[in-house]
């Protein structure tokens, strides 16, 4: 190479895309030529900053405002598309006027035929149509649930209609009956679907029920009867607790009317009313909810699947049973579902299940493929390994004894494809003699073949005698 080095070739050199002979020539030239050395330095510094740019995280945006604007834009367009075009009355009137004018100018005066006496018409009144019956489907259940006095094996396949009576033991059951409309029956509670149709929903509760109901259309009613009190709403989320001695109604959002034969009181958002049996409801009983009570209400929101089509759901969805050794918080596909063991209705496909450890951190417990079948799928979550000492020493051993050249060979194809910043997370158990009990890849963004290769490399690490340890290791590659 006799001339100067083009700047982009310095970038190639930085990226390792220059062969050894040319590299030597370029470097020798830079030693002799101050201008090229300066150019090389500038290009290298720019190239170095690429990694920093690549890892820049997103700044915070006004997320809620943007979401509202997106929704407004999309829904406005949809509404405009749905709006029927207005009939062209103007054109019609103009055409009519023109026709009349032409007739008056060109033709003789019209001769009108005698007026025909109107014939009396009897209006045929159609018989009142019965409102369409609603169907409720169980979306989540934990513990024993009885429907009409029996423990059904096909709880998730059963349609709940008018007259159904549901009771819980220590767990709870969530029942969806429409878009964004569901109720959840708390522990040791009973509910009866007294009326369950498109016009009126009337539930009679003894115990605790959490209700989230989408805004009702005009003429629709939603009632919860709790002893001698009736709770009526139009669209809201609230909790009714009724036992023999009192009734309590807490409203998370919306407006709830609580009435009895002596009066009526309105309970607004973040407020509750507590009325003893036999006492009339009064606005004096309405108090504000504490933040803890609001949090409890939020956590008790009934589970409603986003797509509500009872027929399709009954045929296509399936229950997923998550069995844990103790009571552990569980998350499916990122959605917290409360304490397991429980059963939840899911759509067919692969679902990721996470459980909380003793520190409250969610960790992946596994994934499960669910097919559309009434019997569903069960996932047994292994018990959390007991905390072990000596993790830091074992971790150090793992880190220092990885066969780096072999690991590099595993990653070669990935690196050539330009994919960087990958990782693998493993769970590993080592006993006191240094033998590896198990080594599982929990998570990785590598292709499966590469992840397996990395796992083999990690399995090849030899540990010495020491403290037994079980831990999870996140390794950036």
């Amino acid at each position, binding site marked *: 190479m006799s001339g100067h080095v083009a700047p982009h070739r310095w970038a190639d050199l930085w990226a390792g895309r220059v062969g050894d002979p040319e590299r030597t020539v370029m470097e020798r030239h830079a030693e002799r030529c101050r201008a090229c050395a300066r150019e090389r330095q500038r290009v290298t510094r720019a190239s170095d900053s690429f990694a920093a*740019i690549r890892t820049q*995280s997103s*700044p915070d*945006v006004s997320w809620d405002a943007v979401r509202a604007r*997106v929704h407004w834009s999309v829904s406005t367009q949809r509404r405009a598309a749905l709006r029927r075009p207005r009939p062209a009355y103007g054109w019609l009137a103009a055409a009519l006027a023109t026709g009349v004018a032409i007739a008056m100018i060109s033709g003789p005066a019209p001769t009108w035929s005698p007026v025909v006496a109107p014939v009396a018409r009897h209006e045929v009144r159609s018989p009142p149509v019965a409102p369409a019956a609603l169907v409720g489907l169980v979306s989540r259940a934990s513990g024993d649930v009885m429907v009409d006095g029996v423990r059904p094996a096909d709880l998730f396949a059963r349609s709940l209609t008018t007259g159904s009576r549901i009771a819980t033991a220590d767990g709870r059951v969530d029942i969806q009956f429409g878009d964004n409309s569901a109720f959840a029956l708390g522990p040791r509670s009973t509910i009866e679907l007294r009326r369950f149709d498109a016009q009126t929903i009337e539930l009679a509760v003894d115990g605790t029920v959490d209700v989230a109901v989408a805004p009702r259309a005009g003429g629709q009613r939603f009632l919860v009867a709790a002893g001698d009190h009736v709770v009526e709403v139009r669209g809201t989320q609230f909790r009714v607790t009724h036992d023999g001695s009192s009734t309590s109604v807490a409203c998370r959002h919306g407006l709830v009317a609580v009435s009895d034969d002596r009066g009526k009181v309105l309970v607004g958002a973040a407020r509750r009313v507590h009325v003893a049996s036999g006492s009339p409801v009064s606005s004096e009983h309405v108090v504000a909810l504490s933040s803890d009570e609001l949090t409890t209400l939020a956590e008790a929101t009934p589970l409603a699947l*986003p797509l509500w089509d009872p027929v399709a759901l009954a045929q296509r969805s399936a229950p997923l049973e998550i069995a844990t050794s103790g009571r552990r918080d569980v998350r499916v596909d990122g959605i917290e579902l409360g304490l397991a063991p429980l059963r939840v209705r899911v759509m067919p496909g692969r679902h990721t299940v996470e459980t909380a450890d003793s520190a409250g951190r969610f960790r992946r417990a596994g994934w499960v493929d669910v097919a559309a079948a009434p019997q569903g799928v069960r996932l047994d979550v292994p018990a959390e390994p007991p905390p072990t000492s000596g993790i830091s020493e074992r971790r150090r051993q793992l880190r220092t004894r990885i066969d780096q050249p072999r690991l590099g060979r595993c990653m070669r194809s990935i690196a050539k494809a330009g994919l960087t910043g990958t990782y693998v997370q493993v769970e590993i158990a080592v006993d006191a003699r240094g033998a590896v009990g198990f080594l599982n890849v929990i998570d990785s963004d590598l292709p499966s073949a590469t992840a397996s290769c990395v796992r083999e490399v990690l399995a090849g690490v030899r540990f010495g005698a020491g403290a037994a340890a079980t831990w999870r290791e996140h390794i950036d590659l």
Partner: protein
Amino acid sequence: MVAHVMLARVKRDTTGSLATLGPADEADLIARCKADDRSSHDELYHRFRRQVAGNLYRVLGDRTDLDDLVQEVFVIAFRGLERFRGDARLSTWLYRICVNVALGKIRTRKRRPAAIGVADLDATSADPSLIERPETPDRALERRQDQERVYKALELLAPKKRIVLYLHEIEGLDLKQIAYLVDSNPVTVRTRLFYARREFYRIIAGEPPPDKLPADEGDDR
């Protein structure tokens, strides 16, 4: 491979409790969105909003109008979901929309030049896991100046060249992936990239930018 790389990027960008979507969940989410379900629109927005904002932010190098651009991406996505055939991952498809929206923004900015807000890049820190030790003020200043230099050089390129160069040099994507994102073919991308690199590194090295090359023609159509 395109989908895989994008998936990796989604994993890197999403934070908090939202798990990465599997293909089946993704198909389900798309189906629900197509059925005009508001809650699934919200879910899609919540899952991908940080990825979208991050992509736009990195491509453009400043946060001016970022709210509007994120909004634009999601509006285009929701309106275009009907036409989404599922031949790429949802994250990839959104990335493609981001690239187009960013391209539009760059073109507008070319017509109405504004101050380059690259200083914004330091407002949010990089991924903390990638920072091994606290940065000294001198080093931070140097890094900031280097990034400013990169974005200023990018500003001088034609929009299409800029996008291609950004995706290759900074995001590390290969020609096929870039071709998908910019809706072109790999050969065109290769040519564009060749000229873009030559021009960009000349600017970086302090040489005067060359005259317009044939590949510039039609860039701002």
